[in-house]
């Protein structure tokens, strides 16, 4: 076998060898950043009984429609509100609230009424730069009426290494944006 033959063969063998490979088995996808559930816990000032309302979409985006429990509160009361975020698609369910708390400098929970007469919400928790986090706060209801309550989890990560969170809703993007029906009755 001539030298040229040998060289050609070595070249070809090299290509074939480098080209061969091993394959793994397919696996289901796993989203590790999923939030399926928003849970609102209202405790009227001076009492210890909590009312809980949830917004749930256990199979993630699309598929089965979300289930939403309507909120009913009493008029002209002051409530302590605790907001929780969960991933209930996993067993056991993962509580995402602590994760948000650990990154409080780039998260903001905003609770907004459909009409300003429905309620006011004031966050009582603060992040390291003294901006509100909004996971816990005080909600003061107005007079008897119906409307909606919107909960937004704003993700406001630094841009170019500069923090952008400024206590307002504007910077960043929505991680959660859900709306509950709300009824206020005496």
């Amino acid at each position, binding site marked *: 076998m001539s030298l040229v033959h040998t060289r050609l063969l070595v070249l070809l063998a090299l290509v*074939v060898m480098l080209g061969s490979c091993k394959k793994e088995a397919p696996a289901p996808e796993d989203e590790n950043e999923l939030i399926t559930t928003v849970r609102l816990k209202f405790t009227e000032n001076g009492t210890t009984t909590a009312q809980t309302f949830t917004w749930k979409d256990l199979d993630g*985006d699309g598929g089965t429609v979300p289930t939403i429990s309507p909120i009913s509160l009493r008029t002209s009361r002051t409530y302590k509100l605790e907001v929780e975020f969960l991933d209930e698609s996993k067993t056991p369910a993962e509580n995402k609230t602590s994760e948000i708390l650990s990154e409080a400098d780039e998260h903001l929970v905003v609770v907004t009424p459909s009409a300003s007469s429905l309620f006011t919400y004031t966050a009582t928790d603060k992040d390291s730069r003294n901006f509100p986090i909004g996971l816990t706060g005080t909600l003061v209801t107005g007079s008897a009426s119906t409307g909606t309550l919107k909960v937004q989890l704003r993700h406001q*990560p630094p841009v170019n290494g500069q923090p952008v969170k400024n206590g307002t809703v504007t910077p960043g993007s929505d991680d959660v944006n859900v709306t509950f029906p709300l009824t206020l009755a005496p």
Partner: protein
Amino acid sequence: MNKKKLLPYLIFPLYSVRPRRRWQYQFFAGWVLFLLFHFAYAQTPKDCHCLIKGVVKDRETRLPIVGAILRIEGTPLFTTTDTAGRYKISNICQGKYTLECRIVGYKVIKTSIVLEHSAEENLNLSEDEVHLQDVEIVARRLQTLLSQKSSLLEGQALELTRGETLGDALKRITGITTLQTGASISKPVIHGLHSNRVVIMNNGIRQEGQQWGSEHAPEIDPFIAKRLTVVKGAAGVRYGSDAIAGVILVEPDELPKSPQLSGEVNAAAFSNGRIGVVSGTLQGGLPQWKGWAWRIQGTLKNGGNIRTPDYFMANTGVRENNFSITTGYRNNRVGVEAFFSQFDSNIGIFSGSHIGSTSDLLKVIQNGEPFIKTGFTRNIERPNQFIRHNLLKGKAYYNFNGNRLSWTIGRQFNRRAEYDLHGPQAATNPALLFRITTLTSDLVLDHKPLGNGKMNGQLGLTGLYQYNFTDGRPLIPDFEQTNIGIFGLERWVFQRWELEAGARFDWRQLDVFRFVGTVPDPRHHSFNNGSGTVGVVHTPNEKLSFRANFGTAWRPPTPNELYSKGVHHGAASYEEGDETLRPEVAYNLIGSVEYTSQRFKGELGMYHNQISDFIYLKPQAEPILTIRGAFPYFKYTQTDATFTGFDLDTQWDVIPQRFSHNLKFSYLRAYDRREQGYLVLIPANRIENKLRWSFGKVFSSKDTYVILSHLWVDKQRRVPPKSDFMDSPSAYHLWNFNVGGALSLKGPSQLHWAFSVQNALNTSYRDYLNRFRYFATEQGRNISLKLRYTF
């Protein structure tokens, strides 16, 4: 035959048949010559009105060679090339001749021609070297159909695009636009179609990545290419049935024949984004191993935040580290080549484009500019994409009795990691990770001319095997697919007519490893179909030629069209696949007229592409409610669509050698026939005017030129009502300016320089085909300097 001898026989069965004769043409070395027409002489009554014409260029610089002498051996006929390197010899009798081209400083080229009416021979001369006086003649194979006019980007035109992305470079060709995701991600769009409908052949291998995604640009280092060729129109027969819109060929130079070391260094600096690009090529032969050659090439790119006329776009930096190595052996009977390339990039995604919900999107549109503006930085943060594409290619060919058998195999691995803004769980894991491996094999036989030399063509067998893994956020399931295709293409010549016809059949098996929750729910699809092409070229006289081609192509639905499910974040839409989709079929009619005179060249190309069962995202009546609010709901649906339009390209030498004008005009109308309406994301009509002054030698810079160009892009008015979150952007005007030339340095080395200003007036505008049009305006003025040193 003993065992030792059997192995090469099996691998190169035809090659080993007559081993002694393979050295016979060993003395044939030199440079490559492309024959456009290579048909045998017809034994019909003699007609002495034949014509041969063409352009003579320097093979390295691609600049025209002035004053080269062309002579037809055995006749008194000769001519010299004009200032554009053009030549023409008329009144030749039909027959077989040898055309000789010579000029001092270059090697003499001789090529045999067969004249029946007129022929075109574009010659590339290479500079003379003492050791090599031999000449090799290589016929241009049926790489593209003659009846489908292909467009080229090479030489100086390609040089002016150095440092830009592949998509941006291709935009120079009439009828090609880009689908952008900001300034750093651009995908070529041919006549309104893109992604899976455009096949990109990277150095002879079908580029396979996640090309379905609008924000997934081709993973190719443009510096690999010495020439970019675009075939506009269905080219399914030769390049795979799914080439519904066309094919882009990215071709490197041939390996050098001379053992001498040569190479080039390219450097480009851009003011916008402060982008720096350096690319180098080194090539040579192996002195002890005759016939062997090698090349190494590498590119580094580093850029920071892009600036619009009014503000910086945060996190729009880019990094690229690419390299390729090639080695091969070649004599005139047999050749082998091995090629490996790696493309590695990290692209920042404009952080102002990250939206979580529809209300986020509406707010930023209302605001008219990003909420967060920053200064300049080179840091790339999340969201970003890490992409790596490895290509290993092997190629062998064997010439026998005028036939040529070639075999090309390739293995590609594409890893695309997309990082979202989120941490900390995903600090190391990307939100989306795609890994796709593709094995390809193409066996092509170019048969020798048949029927008195009037018919030539090729037969081919192609195979593709591919598997994909997706990890992270559910988007598309894992899949595996196999495709086998056979094809044949033939060309006949009669007087001033040329006919082409081809057919192909493909078998595709697709296995999708779908999961419902954690329970496997696999699916199997099988798609088989044929495609064909017929074409004609008529050259009534030396100035005029007509081409017409009718081609069909079909494209099976891709896994994302069948099974995708989820929110498309940048587009604020919920997209869902449909597993009952059928393949789409295109019927493509193209016609073109070309007129060439001494000072004017014009080409009008018209097309009508009718696509049955065209797959697109159709808006649904009800939105999808998610934890991030309601998203508009889109479902992959089929319709019947037509794409009709024309491209006009003219070149007028107002003052020969001094001043010329170039016009490019493209018009496209896309229509949805079932819905009786327009289609979304169709490029707007545009006109480009270019004035070019050539000054020849200015100080020590030769071939000095100044180019002033103006591009007008219309507003896309043909959009379906309520199809978008905002109205399609207004029409815009862009002014660009280029000045450049070349300096001769010591010995054969040269330094080419080009200074450019893009968007010279710093116009603030948005383009309908940029996915970031909602979030920011296009990039502002960009001043660049490009240097190319060859040795």
